[in-house]
Structure formats: C-alpha cells, structure tokens
C-alpha cells in the first residue's frame, strides 16, 4: 500500500483506522509501523503479513454490487415458485404422492404387459447364446412346406 492509497482509504472509511474493514486495516497498520521504523512484529505477525500479501489480487467492487443487485432484482421478479403454489408443509406430502403414483404406474404396467415379457427374455437369451431370436419370437420365415400350396396356386 502506498501513501496515496492510504489517503484514499481515509477518505473512503474515515480517519479511525481501527474501524476500517479487513484487510485494509491490517495493511494500513503495517504501513504505519514501517513508516515509524518500529519493529515489524513477532514471527506470527510476519507470517500473517506474508499470507495477506500472497492473497492479494485485483477486485472490482462496483461489479460485485451490480451483480448482487441484479440477482436481487431477479429474485423479486420470479413469477412462479413451488412455495407460491402450495404451503411448505405440503411439499413433502406432494413429493411422496408423486413417487407413489409413479410406483403404482410401474407395477400396473408390469402386471398388464408382464405376461408378454417372457418372449422378450427368451429372445435376449437366444441372442446371448449366438442364435437368431426370430424363431423364438415367432416372426421367422414360413416353413417351406407351408408354401407348397401357394406354389401350386401360382
């Protein structure tokens, strides 16, 4: 921190450095200690100062304020929320009901279509064994003897 920066911070936060926010306060105190020519504190203070200097980076306070205000504005405009549709105490009950409906629909689907699923299982087993599954599903080519009459017809 330079003397000009210290003056700028005095104008921004007031003359009482002890009331400044961190980390400006520590930096100003170290600057004043250096200016006095007094000891640079104990070993712990020296390490702390190094940590603060190592953490330093440029930040843009104006952009932070703008983004936070944008988010607050979006929060106010949000038109539809679950909490607006139903009271909070009903949300777990509604979620449980939805889950129950899904489970029931699955069970009903299996009960109705389950009888036909045996053929699919057989076809998958046939595929796994390296055979054609068409015969298992009953959709293969007709047997040659079944066509004899039709040849005669043609």
């Amino acid at each position, binding site marked *: 921190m330079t003397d000009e920066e210290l003056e700028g911070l005095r104008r*921004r*936060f007031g003359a009482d450095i*002890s*009331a400044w*926010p*961190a*980390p*400006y*306060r*520590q930096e100003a*105190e170290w600057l004043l200690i250096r200016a006095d020519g007094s000891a640079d*504190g104990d*070993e*712990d*203070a020296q*390490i*702390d*100062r*190094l*940590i*603060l*200097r*190592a*953490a*330093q*980076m440029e*930040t843009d*306070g104006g952009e*932070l*304020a703008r*983004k*936070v*205000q944008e*988010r*607050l504005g979006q*929060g106010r405009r949000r038109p539809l929320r679950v909490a607006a549709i139903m009271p909070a105490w009903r949300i777990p009950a509604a979620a449980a009901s939805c889950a129950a409906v899904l489970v029931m629909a699955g069970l009903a689907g299996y009960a109705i279509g389950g009888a036909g699923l045996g053929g699919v299982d057989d076809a998958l087993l046939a595929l796994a064994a390296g055979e054609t599954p068409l015969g298992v599903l009953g959709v293969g080519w007709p047997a040659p003897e079944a066509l004899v009459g039709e040849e005669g017809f043609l």
Partner: protein
Amino acid sequence: MTGAGHGPHAPGEDDGLILRAAAGEQAALVRLMDRHGHGLRLFAARYLGSAADAEDVVQDVFVSVWKHAARFDPGKGRASTWLYRIAANRCVDARRRRSFRAFIGLDDVHDTLADEARQADARVGARQELAIVREGLARLPERQCMALLLRAVAGLDVPGIAEVMGASAGSVEQLLVRGRRTLRARLGTSRDSHGEARGRPT
C-alpha cells in the same frame, strides 16, 4: 495489530448497515459490499483456489445477507464475524460440490488461482516467498488454511475464528500454530536452498 473481536462489543458501522439492510435499505447493502467485498473475495479465492468460484461465493454471501439480515443479532458477535461465517460455510459447500464434480469426472481439480499467480510472479518478478506462501496455503489441510486466512485476511482474533469455524478456541490455536509452522518450514527450506545455490562455487 487489532483483530475483529468476538462477543459483546461497541456497535460499529457494519452492525448499523446490516440492521438498515434488514429494514430493506439497499444502499446499506451496497455500502456493506464496499467495505467487505474485497476481503471476502480474497479469503474465498485463496481458500478455493479459484477467483471465479470466489466471485460466486461472495455474491451468494451478500444475497444471503439481504434475505436474512433480520437474523443478525449484534449482541452475539460482530457483523464481520457473521459475514465471514456465511462465507466460510459457502466456501466449504463449494469445495464439496467441486470434489463431487471431480469424482464423477465433470471437473478437474485444479488450482487456477495458483497458476495465474505463478504467471504473474514470473512476469513482474515478485518475491519468491509470496509464491511459496501461495503454494504452501494450497497444500495445507483445509481447516489450517481456513484458520490462517481468517486470521491474516479477515483480521479475526482466535475467538472470532472459533465462532466462524464452529470450533473451540484451543483447536483454532492448534490449527494456527501448525499452519504457520508448516509455512515457516517451507520458507526456511526455500531460503536454505537459495543460500546454498548462491554459495556454490561455479
């Protein structure tokens, strides 16, 4: 050096700003961001190792302050301690989320801030000990790193750090002692190796 204390204290500007924010005065929140936005970002960026993640965390902190300002009780502690406690919780959540994303393969665990700083150090020839401290902080256990940052960047004293981290004052002192000892050892090793390199005949 004075640390931001803990427990009963004279009401400061920050306390008044939070109370005004609780009353819906957005200018008070802007002033609070002006006072603490920089410190919170330094703390979060160094703890998370990412300036972008830190930006999100600090925005979350002030949105949360705006929504829950009425919960702040000046009798229980300082406003700065309250702000850093919210930030610390958000940082821990962000780190957990990042670990999970890395675990399922969506993210690389990568200290982008350390990379940027390393490049900056090379560019401007900054002192090597700052680079060693950055590396050292990134390698410290999470709680030691947090305790050191709350001390050095947030300027909190031991009871304040204990309140932020939800730990006892004794365990915070231990974390600070261990963290500082590790960083000192790293700095000492580096100084020794540089001294040897300089003293070596060519």
